[in-house]
């Protein structure tokens, strides 16, 4: 008995699949799914494979659709030539600080709004909710001005802290904390646990799933972050991977096309590894994220 005979989920069930016409339709849908997967995966794959072609095949016009030659050592030589270790380290510094800020500041805000609820908290909460509606890129100029006023340009600090003011993460935390049984919190309060300790001793350990979701979201967001780093970090030494990618796709004509392609792949690699390891949390996160 194949798995199709026991299909009870979805719109089409096993009874329909006994009809040849429906079975044919099903296989057409399977084929379409394969096409969808192909469209999703093929572009990066093609860029990857063709960046490994030898120089003669690479220069060929029109290009070969399926490459014939491979020079995998290009991966390493290009990495070294472009000095990607430096950009990776810079990006990792950016990501690490951003994740910490995203969890600590938005977590604390969610905690106060959901659990402590001091007098007048509702006003702040409404302001935060309202800022969800404001497009993020619109504030670019004044944010830049603020950063310059504090002489923080060319530093990662303003980039890290920008993750501490994310209305969406606050809302995720708040909604999660709302579900924590009040008895636990009351009990800790009666034992005289101060608010801040209550947060990291009791609330945080109970909130691992949402912390994971925010961590993955903010890793992904800060790794991909481009515009604010681009205008803040003007020093080449502190460029992140994204700035490098953007810069090389314009200037730097000395760089050969296959090097550019490989550089793009270096930029894609960490998030892909992240998905492969945290797929479960991610799917969860996307769905939680949609319910804002």
């Amino acid at each position: 008995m194949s798995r199709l005979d026991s299909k009870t989920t979805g719109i089409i069930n096993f009874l329909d699949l006994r009809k040849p016409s429906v079975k044919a339709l099903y296989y057409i849908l399977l084929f379409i799914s394969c096409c969808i997967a192909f469209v999703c995966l093929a572009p990066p794959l093609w860029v990857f494979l063709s960046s490994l072609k030898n120089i003669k095949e690479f220069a060929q016009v029109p290009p070969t659709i399926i490459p014939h030659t491979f020079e995998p050592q290009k991966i390493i030589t290009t990495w070294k030539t472009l000095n990607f270790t430096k950009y990776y380290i810079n990006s990792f510094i950016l990501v690490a600080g951003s994740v910490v800020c995203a969890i600590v500041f938005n977590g604390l805000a969610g905690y106060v709004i959901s659990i402590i609820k001091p007098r007048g908290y509702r006003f702040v909460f409404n302001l935060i909710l309202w800022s969800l509606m404001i497009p993020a890129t619109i504030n670019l100029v004044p944010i830049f001005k603020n950063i310059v006023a504090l002489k923080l340009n060319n530093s990662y600090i303003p980039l890290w802290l920008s993750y501490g003011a994310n209305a969406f993460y606050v809302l995720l935390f708040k909604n999660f904390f709302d579900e924590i049984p009040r008895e636990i919190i009351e009990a800790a309060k009666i034992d005289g646990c101060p608010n801040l300790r209550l947060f990291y001793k009791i609330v945080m350990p109970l909130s691992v799933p949402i912390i994971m979701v925010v961590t993955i979201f903010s890793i992904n967001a800060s790794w991909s972050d481009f515009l604010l780093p681009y205008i803040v970090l003007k020093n080449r030494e502190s460029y992140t991977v994204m700035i490098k990618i953007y810069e090389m796709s314009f200037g730097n004509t000395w760089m050969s096309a296959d090097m550019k392609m490989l550089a793009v792949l270096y930029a894609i690699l960490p998030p892909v590894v992240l998905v492969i390891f945290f797929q479960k949390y991610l799917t969860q996160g996307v769905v939680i994220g949609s319910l804002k």
Partner: protein
Amino acid sequence: MNKKMSGKLSNRLSENISGWLILLPSIVLFTFYIWEPMIYSLILSLNETKGFRMERFVGLQNYIDVLKDSVFHQALINTFFYVIWSLIIGFLVPIIVALIVNEMVYLNSFFRFSIYFPNMVPGVAALVLWGFLFDPSEGGLLNAIRIKLGLQPSDWLQNPKLTIPLLIFIMTWKSAGSTALIYIARLQGINQELYEAACIDGAGIFRRIIHITLPELYSTARMLLIMQIIFVFQVLYEPLVLTGGGPNNASLSLMLLSYNYAFVDFVAGKSATVSVLVTLILMCLTFIYMKATKENNNV
């Protein structure tokens, strides 16, 4: 009794104070990154500026200048085209993908992984990557395929008629997967008994979709629709990285215009003006939309 009351009161007071103290860093950050910039944008837009410095108050002069500017008209029209194309190309794709992938028995998790994969490709990297494929010379992959099929190579993004739809295509490629996952989660939440009941009543697959699946997806789709409009209205990265707004401003969006005013022409006042106008348009859109859906619900 009195002592207990005052004890409770001071307890409540200290609770309030510590609450506000813990909230303080977040308030500072939100002020620094969101609330103050918002107000400052508004003020900036009412002033003549030199670089990022305000020179003097000019009232609505910036607005008059911007609204008269033919480049602004072009950007405004383009932005609406972005939204329209994103509704044509981008809105239905995730729903259809979700419907199909949700039916798959074999390779289910592989399909989910692959549709989500483009989401993981960082924005700028995805754009540069598609730049290789849409290379207008004969060296691009898509042109190689066209030549194999015996067609003339296309200009792709350099063709003003194709730029916006192609940019929207890339945006859809990048983001349809996560939207599809949301729909899939929704589809799996549908009570299976509804389908069984429909089956017993003799409803075919098509009628099941029309009468059960689509109504169940309606509220999710409605929410995602407005989010998509708001998101696409702020399109900036795609034209910035791939076309620079060209050819001949054909893909210039409002946000890119605002970016250009600020960081290319260094007229912060005009940039803020465009930002404020975009915010106003978005507010209007949200308002109209909420109003419309409310009336729909009442019927």
